[in-house]
Every structure is written in structure tokens, then in C-alpha cells.
């Protein structure tokens, strides 16, 4: 079975491009050109050079000794938190802005939840001298103030999304409306592995540098390319898609996805889509999505703004449905404690999103000989206020 996208834009029954006609010319242009553009030698050279000299890649694969001792298994951390701008998001924004330039676009729009994708987009827009507008839910603007300040300093305009739950879903709606209103000069840099085809595949390809590096880094350290498990947190699923990509068709590698359970999967305040979602259409793709029996999209909840999304990318919906991926749900409390534990044991403060991935160590027992690679997708600087509030530090 293939876990990659097929030529019609589907992963199994998930994916496609369920978009209003107003978006068709832009999405179709992208669909026709993204593979060709990203395969050009000049594109690859520019992309790789920026990842190396600007982002600081390769990001280290770090053996977490004290964490490994505590859980009696071999744990490696893929240090996406050390990237310029503090998370994996920049891998994709670099790729997409290079595509946007080649499409002749002058104006960039983006949505953001935690603000990491907004910062990564504002950063590459500053780098390339392009106009940048970032849509962000009003609630998220309040809980991610440092990232809002960064975006403004980088020259981006941050526009609050005031509808619905005023979080990531609504920011995405507003960005899509902006694109409808500006169909000629604008490129929409989607930050997650969601949206109409070709976005999930394009974002996944740009993020796949994560698993590409894991392979050769692990070969150096362990003498083998394939770990026993790769673990990542999932909101829309971009860091997870990149972490899994080169292991999808390696059956000996277990794929572990960690979703935000918020206050508990069945508490009514959760973002655990694989448990609570049904097949539906959101933001241009068919995927698993949290909704009422009547097909209205449910307001999700997570303490982590980056996981506070009612759907998952179509690739992940397919991994969940086929059983190729093993999905776990982690509550706010479990994630916060896992984040504090990583800080105390390894001296690394993770983003609250990434902290969810670490909480799986308390839910799944690994063997002492297992090599487990956990994607440390972002750093926790932006979450200091949340950590301080939560732990009364």
C-alpha cells in the first residue's frame, strides 16, 4: 500500500481539492507547477543553501541520555527547536516562498496558531522583501504574545480572526477569504499538511528534510538508518509528516502520532481528531474532522495553540484509518508535565506542542533495545508565560 499522495491528490479516500471556484486558478496553477519547480536544479540549490546557512541545518539528532535512563530505552531527539525562528515551520516557508517567487507572486498571506508558522512566514518575507499578512485567532494573539511581537518586528501585518472560536481554524478561514479577494498577486503559504491538493504533499515534501536527516544521522550513531519508532505531535501534522516521510514504507519503523486531548478525550474540550473525528471536508480537503452529527465543525480545545485544530492532514487520516500510524492522545496536564520533565532532565524547554510528543513515554512501554526518535518540533520560549502560569513558577 502507498501512503503517499496519488496523482488525483488523494491518500486513500482522504485529500482532494474541495475548493470554491474562486480559488481554482491559483490552486490549479500550483498543482501543475509545484513538482516541476521544486525539481529544478536552481531551486534545489537555493533551497538547500538557505536551509544550511540561514536555518542552520542539519538540525542535530541528540541522544537524550537521562531521559533514556528514566524510560529504559534509547531516545533520540530531532532538534527542530534549534532551527532559526525556533521550530520546524521554517523548512516549509523557505520552500514555499521560493515557489511563490517563481510563480511571480508579490504578496504572501498565512494563517498561524501558535505563531510559529506566522513568524517563519514573516521571516522569509523579510528575507525576500515581500509583503506579508498573517491571520491569527484573537485568542491565540493573546496567548502567544511574544510571537505576535516578532511578526510585527519582521514587518508583517497581523490580522485578528474574530469569528468562531477565534483560533487556528478561524485564522485559516480568514486567510482563504483573503486569497479569494486577491486572486492574482497573492500566494497563500499554508503552514500545515492540510488544505487542498497539492498543499498537503507540497508541505510534506518540504518538511521531509527532517526524516532525510534522521536516516543518515542515525546511521552514524547507531549503524542503522531506521529507528524502531518515530514519534511526533499532530495538529494539522506538518512536523509529523516530515518526521515520518522517509519511513512510511519501511514496515519495521513504528509510526507514533500524538494528539492533544485537551482536558480529556471525552471532556468536550479536546482536539483528539483521530478519536473524535469523522470523514468530512475542511479547508479544502476530505479528512477526519471533529464535527456535529449535522456536519458543523466543532470548536476544538488544547492548551497548545499549535494543536488546537479540529482536523488532521489527509495523509495522517489515512495513516490512522489504515493502522499504519499508532495514535495517542495526551491531555494538557500530561503535556505540561512532560515539558517540565524534559527541561529538568535534559535542559531543553520544549514548545507545549512538542511536549505532547514526550508524554507518550508514559503511555507506551518501549523495550530497552528500542531506538525511539522523537521530533522536538519547537522551542518553548514562546510558551514561558503558559509554563509560568501553569506551574506557578
Amino acid at each position, binding site marked *: 500500500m502507498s501512503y503517499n499522495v496519488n496523482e488525483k491528490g488523494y491518500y486513500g479516500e482522504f485529500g482532494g481539492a*474541495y475548493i*470554491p*471556484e*474562486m480559488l*481554482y486558478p491559483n490552486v490549479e496553477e500550483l498543482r501543475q507547477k509545484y513538482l516541476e519547480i521544486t525539481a529544478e536544479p536552481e531551486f534545489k540549490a537555493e533551497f538547500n543553501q538557505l536551509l544550511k546557512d540561514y536555518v542552520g541545518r542539519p538540525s542535530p539528532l541528540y541522544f537524550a541520555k537521562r531521559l533514556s535512563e528514566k524510560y529504559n530505552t534509547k531516545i533520540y531527539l530531532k532538534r527542530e527547536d534549534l532551527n532559526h525562528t525556533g521550530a520546524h515551520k521554517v523548512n516549509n516557508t523557505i520552500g514555499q516562498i521560493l515557489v511563490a517567487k517563481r510563480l511571480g507572486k508579490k504578496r504572501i498571506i498565512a494563517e498561524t496558531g501558535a505563531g510559529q508558522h506566522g513568524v517563519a512566514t514573516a521571516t522569509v518575507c523579510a528575507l525576500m522583501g515581500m509583503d506579508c499578512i498573517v491571520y491569527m485567532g484573537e485568542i491565540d494573539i493573546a496567548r502567544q504574545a511574544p510571537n505576535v511581537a516578532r511578526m510585527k518586528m519582521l514587518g508583517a501585518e497581523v490580522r485578528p480572526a474574530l469569528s468562531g472560536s477565534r483560533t487556528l481554524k478561524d485564522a485559516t478561514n480568514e486567510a482563504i477569504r483573503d486569497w*479569494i479577494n486577491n*486572486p492574482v498577486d497573492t500566494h497563500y503559504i499554508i503552514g500545515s499538511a492540510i488544505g487542498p491538493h497539492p498543499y498537503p504533499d507540497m508541505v510534506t515534501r518540504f518538511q521531509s528534510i527532517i526524516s532525510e536527516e534522521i536516516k543518515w544521522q542515525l546511521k552514524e550513531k547507531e549503524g542503522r538508518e531506521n529507528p524502531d519508532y518515530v514519534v511526533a505531535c499532530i495538529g494539522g501534522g506538518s512536523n509529523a509528516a516530515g518526521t515520518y516521510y522517509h519511513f512510511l514504507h519501511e514496515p519495521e519503523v513504528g509510526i507514533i502520532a500524538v494528539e492533544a486531548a485537551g482536558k480529556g478525550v471525552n471532556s468536550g474540550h479536546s482536539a483528539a481528531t483521530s478519536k473524535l473525528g469523522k470523514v468530512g471536508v*475542511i479547508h479544502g480537503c476530505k479528512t477526519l474532522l471533529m464535527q456535529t452529527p449535522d456536519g*458543523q465543525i466543532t470548536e476544538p480545545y488544547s492548551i497548545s495553540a499549535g494543536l488546537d485544530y479540529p482536523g488532521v492532514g489527509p495523509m495522517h487520516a489515512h495513516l490512522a484509518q489504515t493502522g499504519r500510524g499508532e495514535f495517542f492522545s495526551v491531555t494538557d496536564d500530561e503535556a505540561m508535565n512532560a515539558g517540565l520533565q524534559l527541561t529538568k532532565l535534559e535542559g531543553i524547554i520544549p514548545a507545549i506542542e512538542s511536549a505532547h510528543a514526550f508524554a507518550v513515554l508514559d503511555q507506551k512501554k518501549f523495550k530497552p533495545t528500542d531506538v525511539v526518535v522523537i521530533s522536538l518540533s519547537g522551542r518553548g520560549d514562546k510558551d514561558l508565560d503558559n509554563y509560568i502560569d501553569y506551574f506557578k513558577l
Partner: protein
Amino acid sequence: MNRISQKLQEDKKILSIYFSAGYPSLNDTVQIIQDLEKSGIDMIEIGLPFSDPLADGPTIQASSTTALQNGMTTQILFDQLKDIRKSVNIPLVIMGYFNPMLQYGVEAFCQKCAEIGIDGLIIPDLPVDVYADEYKATFDKYGLINVFLITPQTSEERIRFIDSVSDGFIYMVSSASVTGSQSGFGNTQEAYFKRIGEMNLKNPQIVGFGISNAETFNQATQYAKGAIIGSAFITHLKENGSSKIGEFVKTIR
């Protein structure tokens, strides 16, 4: 013959009105439809509210949200409309996003529409290619017309394709925008209306988005068969409640 096709054969410009079902109050739906027909409206688009209406501007977003807060659901709308054909003769179209229809079951949804006497559907986020491959047979089985959108950016080739798949009218979006977001048409729109008019498509075109008064209605229908008013009518409902519908219609023509 489908009521839409019949209406399109009449020698007149079509004035169509959109409103969100369940707005301003849950049980206003039937009364609004009846009043619109009495006021001389030619066709009605009944909006099935959705939590995340991507193609809609603030006015219709707000009316959808209110309708959902009022308790509107797909089933309640069908229940409200079950006897509509005892009192209303003009064509009725349901306009809504795809996800609620998918959850109801596309075939069950179409069957219910046919039972009630709904004549067509407008589903902005169901692309014409997916429709042609997966759903056209079902729509045809229940005699429902599915209406597709075109915009100033739609290529001629795609317009011809949409024309070939369509069997009623083409919904011509006046300009690159979400609903309710402009005032007045300029030369660009005129040129676009004219360009499409001169393509000699088999389906007549009805213009939507940005029609708010007699001036924009007349501009839009200079080349097209008709026009649709949405946000401006919802604003009228918001300010005047569901009475005085006739007064609104009189300001248009």
C-alpha cells in the same frame, strides 16, 4: 420540466434572493419564502447555514452563525419546508457547503430535496470535476439541477467545461471577492459580463456577489439573464426583521 428551466425561458430578467434559513428567527424560513414570492421575486436561494462558510463575507457569516445558534439543522430545514409546495410556486434552490450534505448522505439529501420540491443546489466547495465523477448521476436521478460558479479568473476552457456539465444556469461571480464585499461595478466588471455574454453558452448566466440595489442589478443584467442579491437582503432583515420584505424588493425593480 424543472421549475428553474421553465423560469429561465420567461422573457424577463430574473431577480433571485438569497437568505440564511433560520434567520433572523428559527421559524422565519417559510414566511420569508412566501413573502418573497408575493413580492415578485423569481427565484429563491435558501442558505443552509454552515459553521465555516469560506466563500462568504461578514454579513452572511453572521447570519449563518445566528441561524446555527437558533438551532437550525439540515433536518429542521427539511421539516420546515415539507409543505412548501402547497403555497410556493417559484424555483427554490438550496445553497450550502458540502460537509453538512456529506454528513446527511448525498443521496439521502438529494432524495429529500426532490420530495420537498427543491429544484436545484449550489454547493460552492464541491468542485465541478468531483461532481461530474461522483455525484452527477445521483443529482440527475432526483431531477436536481446543480449550479456552478465562474469568476473573472475562470479560463475560457473551464467555462466551456462547466457549461457542458451544467443544466440550468451558471452562477457568475461578479468579481474576485467573498460575498457582500463591494459597492458598484466598474469597467472591469462590465467587460467581464460582456465577454461571458458573448461566449454564447448553452446555459444562461445569473450574476451574484456585489448586487445590492437597483443600479447594480441593472448593470449586472445588461448582459446576463438575472442577478442574485444576498448580503444586502440579509442586512435588510437584520434592520427590519422579517416584515417589510416587499419594500426591499420595490427598491430593486
